[in-house]
């Protein structure tokens, strides 16, 4: 960082200063400017728009936040959850959208793997990044998508060349101090036949309460490649979280995408998987736990665009206190995507009378030879199960904990990364309080 763009709000001056400070290649600056124009032109989402009718952001004030930049204190980094005890192929960290240190094991660097902040990648591997940047996330989708493209900062770039199999996971930790802004963007590119695992987690620093995350994730999985991607959102409960996340999975490629959503005040996430090549397969896992007054809203799409593609989707949420979740899922099958097999399921465990889970599955099928199934359940913890545990000496609270952990186990059984299973399991179990 050569200059500090200490911005209040997202003014034109602040944006211009931000561009100057970054000194990026012109294709990137142009992309940012185009997105900035979109950001200026677009309105905030209408209250009655399908994606926003259950999610009220009237109290969100963008001018309380600003463009990232400036000094950060890396002693504030919170401990990582997902990578504990794991031998990593590389790691990176950022605070308030400013990248700190990063590391890539030499053996992977030697094979042509790139792992660094997206900002660094734009400057040092511009031609490569340019090929993929913005291919998955559509800046014109809404103001948040536009804002991220215009102002992304920090973030992660992972590139694995053709045929390279990386058997050590990568990890990135993104932290936010009180009231700060995170505009990180993740771009993962796996070339043909490559294999890799990336675990990304987002946390507030100790004691921080507020903040804004306006993020984007783009995952490009080339033919025959295999990507396991994990993103855990564990912000403090005063953080606004807006994210556009999309994967493009090509012929015979596999994506296992696990999301953990524990934090934030309000989250509005679009998670899309596009299966664009014959035989592409995706598995999406979601572990969501809400409490207090949290409001987490997920809009997911499994888009089958080629024949013989399979998608498997399972989100499970447990809700405590007066928290709320919204899940609106869609399986879309294009006319040419015959022999598609799509599955989606959302289960909600409601731990308190004041909590509420909205679960809205959907199918939009334009091919005739397909198999698509969906389902959703919402309910309280079964008192019979609680009694059964109690009759074996569990206290009511221990019983509720065990039952909630069991509820999520079905997801953990699908996750093939041990450290993710364990850390998410513990994090969820710790949150269960008295069950009323």
């Amino acid at each position, binding site marked *: 960082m050569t200059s500090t763009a200490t911005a209040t709000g997202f003014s034109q001056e602040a944006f211009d200063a931000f561009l100057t400070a970054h000194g990026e290649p012109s294709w990137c600056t142009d992309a940012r400017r185009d997105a900035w124009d979109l950001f200026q032109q677009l309105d905030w989402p209408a209250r009655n728009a399908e994606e926003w009718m259950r999610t009220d952001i009237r109290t969100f004030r963008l001018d309380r936040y600003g463009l990232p930049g400036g000094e950060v204190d890396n002693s504030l980094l919170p401990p990582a959850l997902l990578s504990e005890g794991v031998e990593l192929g590389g790691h990176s960290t950022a605070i308030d959208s400013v990248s700190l240190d990063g590391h890539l094991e030499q053996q992977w660097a030697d094979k042509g793997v790139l792992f660094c902040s997206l900002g660094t990648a734009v400057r040092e591997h511009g031609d490569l990044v340019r090929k993929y940047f913005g291919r998955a996330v559509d800046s014109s989708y809404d103001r948040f998508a536009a804002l991220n493209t215009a102002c992304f900062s920090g973030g992660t770039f992972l590139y694995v060349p053709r045929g390279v199999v990386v058997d050590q996971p990568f990890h990135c930790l993104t932290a936010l101090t009180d009231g700060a802004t995170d505009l990180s963007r993740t771009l993962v590119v796996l070339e043909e036949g490559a294999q890799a695992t990336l675990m990304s987690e987002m946390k507030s620093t100790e004691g921080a309460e507020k903040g804004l995350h306006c993020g984007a994730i783009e995952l490009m999985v080339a033919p025959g490649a295999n990507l396991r991607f994990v993103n855990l959102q564990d912000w403090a409960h005063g953080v606004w979280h807006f994210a556009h996340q999309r994967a493009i999975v090509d012929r015979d490629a596999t994506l296992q995408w696990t999301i953990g959503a524990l934090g934030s005040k309000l989250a509005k996430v679009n998670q899309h998987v596009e299966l664009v090549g014959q035989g592409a397969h995706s598995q999406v896992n979601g572990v969501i736990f809400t409490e207090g007054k949290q409001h987490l809203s997920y809009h997911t799409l499994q888009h089958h665009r080629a024949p013989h593609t399979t998608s498997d989707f399972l989100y499970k949420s447990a809700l405590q206190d007066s928290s709320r979740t919204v899940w609106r899922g869609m399986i879309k099958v294009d006319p040419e995507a015959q022999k598609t097999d799509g599955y989606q399921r959302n289960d909600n465990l409601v731990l308190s009378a004041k909590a509420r889970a909205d679960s809205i599955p959907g199918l939009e099928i334009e091919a005739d030879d397909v198999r698509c199934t969906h389902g959703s359940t919402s309910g309280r913890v079964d008192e019979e199960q609680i009694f059964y545990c*109690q009759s074996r*000496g569990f206290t009511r609270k221990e019983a509720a904990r065990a039952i909630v952990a069991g509820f999520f186990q079905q997801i953990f059984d699908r996750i093939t990364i041990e450290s993710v299973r364990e850390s998410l399991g513990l994090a969820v179990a710790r949150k269960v309080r008295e069950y009323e």
Partner: protein
Amino acid sequence: MTDTLRIEDLHVAVEGKPILKGASLTINRGETHALMGPNGSGKSTLGMATMGHPHYEVTGGHVWLNDVDLLELDADERARSGVFMAFQRPMAIPGVKLADFLRHATTNVRNPDRQEGEELIPMREFRKELKSKMEHLQIDMEFARRYVNDGFSGGEMKRAEILQLAMLQPKFAVLDETDSGLDADAVRLASESIAEIGGDKMGLLIITHHDKLLEHNPPDFTHVMLGGRIVETGGIELAHELHERGYERIREEYPEAAAENREMAEASA
């Protein structure tokens, strides 16, 4: 002094409907009691109320474990004071491995004063004990890695209940049709196991329709329940009689209770 479980004039209602209308019986630790009676007479209700199921509302009476009234305690406190029930229809707890469930249960029951969050009994020690108990009961070790009662056959559930009985070593146990849903060999194995686990170490209240279980666990006392009351108590010969000739004589001798039993059965049909 030996431990005593004393059920005293117990009245229980379910959904506002009286089911038990004054049931009394006393079990000393080391004794085996059979509780018999036609379907719907209130046998399971007696066990459920003793264990503390919230659905079964006690409207009168006491359940004394020595000088403690169990009715004042939550179900988990009853379990920790040494009372167990093998359920007629055990609940599935999906996602919770039987071994983990039992490790937690065993820890709590053996350390009644344990606070939440305190250490569980050491894994190695627990595994060893579980393994030897499972071998003894001829249960495959793979069973411990399955989720509690999830997708279990009727017979597997009953065997899992017996395994829990063996691990938790209660002072008193109600065994509610623990022999149903098992084939002949499994019934014999279950009966022998219960005799070995329970025998003179526990006070057993066995609810059963078959004679195999009682053959291996000869009751010191037999109680007959009808219409929510214990209408007759005798020795082992009463169990034999009921088994051979059914409840005709009982119904004739206790027409009021028989009428109530019919009413209860009709109301629930």
